[in-house]
C-alpha cells in the first residue's frame, strides 16, 4: 500500500470520482473538491503529497491554485489538468513550476505512472 495522499480539485464531479476510485484501490488516500476555496481550507488542516487541479474553474483560476500551493507547500507536487489544452497554458504551467500537465481526456495509466515517478523521484 502506498499511503500517499492526493487532492483533486475539478468542477467536473466525475473527474474526482474516477481518480478517487482508481487511486484508492492502489492504496492512496484521495480527497476531491469541486471548488478551490474549500480545497484551500482543507490544505490549512493537512498536507497532501499530490494536488491534481483543473486549469479553468469558476471561482479561482488553476494558475492561482498552483502559485499558492507552490509558495505555501513547496513539497507538494502539483499536476495541472485541462480540457482547454493549449501550448501557452502548458508553458505557463511549467514556468510556474507545475510538476506535470495533462490535457483532457486524461489517460489514467499515464497519470498513475506520473504520480509514482513524482513521489519516488
Amino acid at each position, binding site marked *: 500500500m502506498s499511503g500517499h495522499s492526493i487532492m483533486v480539485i475539478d468542477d467536473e464531479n466525475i473527474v474526482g470520482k*474516477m481518480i478517487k476510485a482508481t487511486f484508492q484501490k492502489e492504496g492512496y488516500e484521495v480527497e476531491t473538491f469541486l471548488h478551490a476555496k474549500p480545497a484551500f481550507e482543507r490544505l490549512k488542516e493537512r498536507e497532501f503529497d499530490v494536488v491534481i487541479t483543473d486549469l479553468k474553474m469558476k471561482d479561482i483560476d488553476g494558475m492561482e491554485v498552483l502559485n499558492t500551493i507552490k509558495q505555501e507547500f513547496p513539497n507538494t507536487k502539483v499536476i495541472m489538468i485541462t480540457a482547454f489544452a493549449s501550448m501557452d497554458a502548458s508553458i505557463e504551467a511549467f514556468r510556474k513550476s507545475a510538476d506535470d500537465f495533462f490535457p483532457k481526456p486524461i489517460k489514467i495509466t499515464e497519470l498513475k505512472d506520473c504520480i509514482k515517478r513524482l513521489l519516488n523521484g
Partner: protein
Amino acid sequence: MKLVHKIILGNVLGIVTIVLIAFFSYHEVKLIQAKLRFVEIADNLNASFLEMRLSEKNYFLYNDPLALQSIKKELQESEQMIRSMRENIITAVGTENFKKLNSNLKRYGKEVEKIDGKNTKVLEAGIREAGRALRMFSESIIKLERNKVNQIISASSKGLLYFFCLVLFVATTSTYLFFSKIFKSLRQIEKTANSISEGNFLETECKISNDELGSAMQAINSMCVELKTRHEQLIQSKKLASIGVLTAGVAHELGNPLNNISMVAQTYTELYDELNKSERLDYMNTVLEECSRIKDIVQNLLDFSRPKKTDFKVSDINTVIKNSLRLVQNMLHVSGVETGLNLQKELPMVYIDENKIQGVLVNLYTNAIQAMPPGGTLSIRSFFENDSGHIMIEIEDTGTGISPEFISNIFDPFFSTKGTQGTGLGLSISYGIIKNHQGEIRVKSDVGAGTTFTIELPVYTAKEDMDEWSQHYGN
C-alpha cells in the same frame, strides 16, 4: 464652372458696371458743364444785347452820337465773343442755332451800319426790329438750354436710380443663387456625413456639380466606398475571430464530457472485477448522462448556427412578459427571489416572434435568478420611449453583478461565468434574436449591486412594411 471662377466673374462684372456708371456720370456732367458754360456766355451776350438796345433807344430819342458808338462797341465785343466761343456755342446749341445767332447779329450790324449819323423813322423801325429779333432769339435759346440742363439732370438722376436698382437686383439675385447652391451642397454633405456616422456607408445619389463642392462630395463618396470596404473587412475579420472563439469554446465544452466518458470507461475497465452490478450500472448511467450533455451542447450549437424559422405577429409585449414570467415562477419560488413588475399600460403593439422573445426573457430571468442570493429582487419594467419610438424592456437584478472586464464578452458565444452550469450560448442566441427583430440589447452592471439588461424593440407600424422585413430577416 468652379466657385473661384464664379467669384472672379462676379467681381469683374461688378467692376465693369461701376466703370460704366462712372463713365455715364462723367459724360452727363461734361454735357451739363458745356450747357452751363453756354448759358453763361448767352447771359453775357444777352446783357450786351440789352445794352445795345438801351443805347439804340437813347440814340433815336435824344439823338446821342455816343449812344451809337456804344452800340458799335457792344456789337464788336459780342461778335468777338461769339467768334472766340464758337466751339463752346456749337457744342451746346448746335451749328444751326449758332448760324441763326450769327446771322441775327449780322443783320443787326447791317442795320447799325445803315444809320451812319442819320435818324429816320424807317431806320429806327429796321434797327428795332433786328434788335428785338436778336434778343428774342438769344433769350429763347437760353430758355431752351436751361430746360435742357434741367432735363439732363433729371434724366441722369433717373438713370442713376435705375442703374442702382438694376445693380441691387442683380447682386441680390446672384448672391441668393450662389449661396443657395452652396448651402444646398453643404446640406447634402451634412446629410451624407450624418448617415456615415450612423453606420450607413451609402454614396450620395444627388447630381455632382463641377465645382469645389462637387469635389468635396466626390471625396466624401470615395470615403464612403473606402469605409464600406474597410467595414466589410472588419466584419469579416470579426467573423473569423468569432469562428476562433467558437472553435475554442466547442473544444472546451465537448472536452469535459468526453474526458468524463473516457475516465469512466478507463476506471470501469480497470475495476471491472471489483465492481458490483449496481456500481457497473451507475458507471454506464454516468456515460449516458455525459452523452446527453454532449447532445445538448450540439443541439444548442445547431440552434445558434441555424436559427429556426421565425413566426412574426402583432403582439402586446406586456402579455409576453407576463407569460414568460409564469415559466420561471417555480425557480423564483425555490430561489427565494421577489419580483417587481412595472409595466406601462396601453403600450403600442410590437411585431415579434412571441416564442423567441419569450425565450430571450426566460434566459435573462434565469441568469438574474442564478446571480442572486435568496431575498434578491428581480424587477421588470416596460415603457415607451418617445425619443427613439421604441418599446423598452428592463430586467434588473440585485445580484453579484458582472466584472467590467467580462462585460464586453458576455454576448460572445461560449462565454460563461457559470462554469459547468452554462453553455455560454444563451446570451449570444438572445443577442441574435433581438437583432433579428431590428432591436437592441444592452447590459449595465455594478459589481455587488446588480445587473440591468435593456431590450429595445421597434413598435408595429404597418403590416406590409413588417411583411417585407419578415421576408428579409425572418428566415
